[in-house]
């Protein structure tokens, strides 16, 4: 054999080996990847396909035209995002402070650490009723405020969805605190002490050391809260205004009341795409924040 053909066969064999290896990897991945494809990919695909299929099974753009031409749905989309973003932001601020507080030792910390978790075991619909009992006209809070001459603003079924936002916030704080607190307690205590001895007060330590180091946990908490609030039905249905209705409520109405499944699929797809955009925006904001930090560092 000449050197050239030898080299050629060697390369062909290497290629075949490569193939065999890739095939093995694919086979090994199949149980996990297959599971994901079957239980997540297929329903998602079904939803997207469904949004282009009319009731009698024909391909159509009508549903999307309807979504984007009816103000009910456009307003609904923005109201959905509002009802998801607002509680996420409020709960995030409170949870970060709570998680930082729980890192310290103080008298009664154990009891406090148990109490704040109560909303974890309260279902969304119960939370909604609790908020209603507290905040509605003639509810507990207004009965306390009235004799004091304070006139509370309308907070249940109000146009800003304050009641719904409060309920979602209340419900999500323990989740977020748990996740962010977990991320914070993984930080070496000496690192925090070092920052203190170098001249940083508690707030500076929180902002410059604890937050950046707990960022993966914070992002996970933001994601979970945002998605669960975006899809919640019971809370906006009970506490939200009659108009606009978030897409989750529209989906329920259209699907179960009217059997209009194609529009449900279209709304589901729209909501998912919007969620992806919001989260992309979140990550680019975080990237910008930490990136600008790194850039400043490189310059100095």
């Amino acid at each position, binding site marked *: 054999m000449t050197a050239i053909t030898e080299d050629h066969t060697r390369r062909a064999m290497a290629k075949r080996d490569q193939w065999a290896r890739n095939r093995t990897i694919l086979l090994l991945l199949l149980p996990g990847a297959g599971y994901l494809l079957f239980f997540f990919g297929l329903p998602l695909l079904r939803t997207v396909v469904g949004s282009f299929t009319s009731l009698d099974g024909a391909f159509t753009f009508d549903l999307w035209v309807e979504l984007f031409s009816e103000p009910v749905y456009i307003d609904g989309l923005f109201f959905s995002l509002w009802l998801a973003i607002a509680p996420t932001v409020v709960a995030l601020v409170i949870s970060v402070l709570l998680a930082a507080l729980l890192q310290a030792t103080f008298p009664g910390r154990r009891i406090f650490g148990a109490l704040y978790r109560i909303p974890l075991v309260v279902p969304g619909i119960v939370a909604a009723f609790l908020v209603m009992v507290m905040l509605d006209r003639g509810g507990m809070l207004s009965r306390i405020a009235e004799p004091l001459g304070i006139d509370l603003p309308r907070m249940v079924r109000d146009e800003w969805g304050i009641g719904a936002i409060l309920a979602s916030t209340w419900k999500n704080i323990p989740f977020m605190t748990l996740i962010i607190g977990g991320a914070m307690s993984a930080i070496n205590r000496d*690192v925090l002490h*070092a*920052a203190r*001895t170098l*001249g*940083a*007060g508690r707030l500076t330590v929180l902002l410059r*050391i604890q937050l950046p180091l707990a960022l993966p946990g914070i992002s996970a908490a933001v994601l979970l809260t945002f998605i669960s609030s975006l899809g919640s039905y019971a809370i906006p249905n009970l506490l939200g205004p009659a108009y606009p209705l978030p897409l989750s409520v529209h989906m329920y109405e259209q699907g179960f009341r009217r059997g209009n499944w194609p529009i449900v699929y279209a709304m589901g797809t729209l909501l998912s795409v919007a969620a992806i955009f919001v989260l992309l925006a979140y990550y680019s904001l975080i990237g910008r924040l930490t990136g600008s930090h790194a850039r400043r*560092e490189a310059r*100095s």
Partner: protein
Amino acid sequence: MAGLSIRGLTKAFDQVRALDGVDLEVPDGQLVTLLGPSGCGKTTLLRSVAGITDPTEGGIWLGDRRIDGVPPERRNFGMVFQSYALFPHMSVFKNLAFGLEMRRLPRSEIRKRVAQALHLVDMEAMAGRLPRQLSGGQQQRVALARAIVIEPDVLLFDEPLSNLDAKLRDSLRDQLRALQRRLGVTSIYVTHDQVEAMALADEIVIMFSGEIVERGDPVSLYRRPIFRFTAEFLGRTNVIEARLDGDRCRLPWGDERSVENPGIDDPAGVAIRPEDIAISTANGSDPHGEIAERMFLGAGTNYVVDAGGVRVRVNVAGTQNDLIDIGTPVRLTPPKSLHLLRRGRHGSAEALA
């Protein structure tokens, strides 16, 4: 700059008293090492000085300013931790700049001071690295630079070298000592390693169970400790129960020696450092005992001799001596005059060291 005074410092946790009435003076510019077994309260003492832990009782003064109750960020003390405690998300430069940013120094000043500090620890080339891209020794040098760049009034070290391997530990220890001398910063250095303590300290403070056992400069503390605990914790020693008679004592194998400090309370025995005993084969004369164990260490040889019913450790330095076989009858020559140890409340440190 000023010296540090600690008076009656006590820290009670739920279960234990980590500190029990500790008094300590660190003169201006000096380095005091706290030496003691693990759990004796060294870290608690250091953290109280730093302001990270609130003492239950007692006070701390810097010069004539009382500082306990001042939050750590306003004490201007530099601290170096066993775990390095660098900020993992910041570059070496940023780690050093942090303390200066807190002091609101102008950017150009920060850049200058960080560069100087990095130069002192020979880490200029690493300014852009993240801590995880450095070795343990490099991380600890950065931590040291971060503590000194703020020009602290007091430097606190909590076993800074104990996570490093032996060779690196020695070289870093020497660098650290030279740096502390040069800067002249009042320092407390915590360690459980007696060699480190002696190499670094102007004064060594021996601690046990939340209390100070005794203190002194390395030489006198090593040569003439008061308590058995100190003698055994600071290096190894033979504590031999000898029959006392005035200023003379009779050793178990029959020899008589004078005692340099007769008449002390509760004597535990005389101290004879293993390296202070000469050993020779009996060669027909009356033997004192025989070799029970032998350990060849290269730079020297350690023996255990069975003499008059007690086991005596003998270290022979040098490489040119003939090794003596196990079982050989030998004679022992301790120093002419021996030092008597007090039992104290601390007992023996043999099991701890």
